[in-house]
């Protein structure tokens, strides 16, 4: 895909016109996790602007898109009103669909997946089940015991329920997870 098509595709999917970006860098300057990023937000904007397929591929494989906290600071201060968080949402979903998730980010993705999985099952989130599901997914990451230090404290403060809350209309609810309106494949 050529530059023009990438820009058009981003605009079609998100409504955001990346051409507006004039590389002032204010997004990066205010980003709380910019230091940790492999590609800074403003660089991602530039890569989409001038990028080829290879550049897009690099973005989708980047750690940045998963580090983004959606704190919206960039969008709120952007002189051009560019909704960068929305673009990040789009890039994450594409990265997932195309199987390009950065190895360092697998923990983050695992967490999100566990989250949605728990919600899918019960309609509401059980923090205990989320923790268990997440720990099972991230066994290899070696943080199995990290949250074990917090769990007893949570139980003693009455913050962890052993029996998850559940919604009643599970049938209606499960419809939301089926037959998604449009798969966002590029």
């Amino acid at each position, binding site marked *: 895909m050529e530059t023009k098509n990438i820009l058009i595709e981003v605009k079609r999917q998100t409504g955001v016109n990346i051409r507006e970006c*004039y*590389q*002032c*860098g*204010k*997004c*990066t*300057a*205010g*980003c709380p996790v*910019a*230091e940790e990023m492999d590609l*800074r*937000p*403003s*660089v991602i904007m530039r890569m989409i602007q001038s990028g080829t397929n290879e550049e897009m591929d690099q973005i989708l494989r980047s750690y940045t898109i998963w580090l983004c906290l959606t704190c919206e*600071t960039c969008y709120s*201060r*952007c*002189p*051009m*009103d560019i909704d960068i968080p929305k673009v990040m949402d789009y890039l994450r979903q594409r990265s997932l669909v195309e199987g390009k998730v950065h190895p360092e980010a697998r923990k983050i993705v695992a967490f999100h997946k566990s989250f949605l999985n728990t919600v899918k099952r019960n309609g509401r989130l059980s923090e205990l089940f989320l923790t268990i599901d997440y720990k099972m997914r991230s066994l290899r990451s070696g943080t199995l015991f990290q949250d074990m230090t917090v769990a007893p404290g949570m139980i003693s403060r009455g913050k962890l329920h052993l029996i998850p809350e559940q919604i009643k209309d599970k049938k209606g609810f499960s419809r939301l997870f089926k037959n998604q309106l449009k798969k966002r494949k590029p």
Partner: protein
Amino acid sequence: MSRIGVFICHCGENISATVDVVKVAEEAGKHEGVAYSTDYKYMCSEPGQTIIKQMIKEKGLTGVVVAACSPRMHEPTFRKACSEAGLNPYMCEMANLREHCSWVHDKSDATTKKAIDLVRMLVEKVKFNKPLYPIKVPVTKTALVIGGGIAGIQASLDIANSGHKVVLIEKDPSIGGHMSQLSETFPTLDCSQCILTPRMVEVAQHPNITLMTYSELEKLDGFIGNFKATIRKKAKSIDEKLCTGCGLCTTKCPTKKIPSEFNAGLGFRTAIYVPFPQAVPNKPVIDKENCRYYQQGKCKVCEKVCPTGAIRFNQEDELIEIEVGAVVVATGFNVMEPSEFPEYGYGKYKDVITGLQFERLASASGPTLGEIRRPSDGKIPKKIVFIACAGSRDPAKGIPYCSKICCMYTAKHAMLYQHKVHDGKSYIFYMDIRAGGKNYEEFTRRAIVEDEVNYIRGRVSKVYEENGKLIVKGVDTLLNARPVEIEADMVVLASAAVANPGSEELAQRMHVSYDAYNFFSEAHPKLKPVETNTAGIFLAGACQAPKDIPETVSQASGAAAKVAILFSQDELSREPVVAVVNRSAPPVYSTCVGCFMCATACPYQAIGEELITDRKGNVIKKVAKVNPGLCQGCGTCVAFCRSKSIDIQGYSNEQMYTEVMALLNDE
């Protein structure tokens, strides 16, 4: 029987790329009353005009329709061509195929159809055109200059030196404007006051200039060569003839803590005050809003100490009417308060200041006598950060345009800082360095290379205070967008240049157009940069758009030249597009019934009454009469007239209906 010529212009490709011009010419040729029609690449060019002239003679044309651009630019061109070929110029009309058709539609049959319709309408109209003749009016050879900054000063001096009278009005107590607030000026670093004050004095002493400070334009009536301006001379509360400017009152005034406008809020002034020591005139005014006597009824210290008894508490505003032939608007600009950008902490942290405030710090006449000391504790900042585009080029919260002067003044600020604080470090966060101008690029290079100012390409996202330092969170976009954090002692925001508050009202008062940012609009962006849409009103300086001193002075001289050209004539010709009340044969004389609704509706007081008498002098009828010298051809009276007795020449009801009918009676 009409013999009309139709001339279709391609306007290069502006029209012909979208409209099938050949077809338009062909269709026009078939229209009843059209004796000739053709198309040409540039109708306004010499060969294009020659075609029109030839055809008028060859075909004996009685009317001409040029289908081209908006009449704003080229109607005079084509009318002149017609006139040279012996046709009354007002027998020529223009159909606007560019702005009204080709520029706003895509190429299609419908677009061409619309072009054909537009031409047909004008052909029908021109059949009803009557020969008209320009109106002659006299010229009052006095100019009104509004605003006493460098633009107004330059324009006034130039007009006065060409031998004409000038009335210069300034809303503040002194002339001098923003330039008097500046420290040193780029790119030569000469002291602003040193080059300005001699000019200020010259204005005050010039025999051809009447200076009225503390005065504003209240009303402007009339038209080119014949304006009537009403000026509000605000009460200064002193008798200027008696006051010697000794300054005793200002030292004794007990209200001392009023933020000084001249020092951009960094210093204080008293309630009776002279804005700055070099002020012209160097006589005080009482600021009633802050004066203890005006607010609480007690004090009068100034009156007691004044050695000449010049204080006049009961002085009132005066309204003065003057007649002028031309107006130069030189009202300048304003600095945008960076309060729209709370992330920069202006207003929250004392040591975050604007560029104009920095000028005052760096100025020898400023609150620190030219030493760079920060407002919070008076210490000399060892690390200073300048943020460019703090408001400019920011459609989201600021203004979309570039303020043009900030790149240069920020470079100057950093340079002045480095000259004054030798062990200091300065940083400029910028997006682009816009240094187009004579010796400008060299100037910014000097700041970087010789004065060791650190330019960092990137914007700042946030400024906050921690442990007595201002933490500036920025980015270096040239280093892979690396976040940069600087612990600064002071931050200077290059705040945007915006239109003055009240400029919109002033524009409406003068009937000149203004843009979306409330800057006054020039008549043509390239070829009429100092004229406005209203003849006889000219622009100078930053009231038209942000500009620096050299550009302002050039424009002011340009405006002065325009005034001088105008004043070189004793009489002006005006377009005869004015209202007339119809007259007819006895016993009707006129369908006007003398209700004078028109006179109440007229915004220009152009309608009076006329008595129709018989041979013996007995009054038969009283009817309305339009003074063609005052009428601006707005048409309000036509709409108000209940008996349809008024018409605008060249735009009569008959002509308008014919145009509309031509559109409705689609062939």
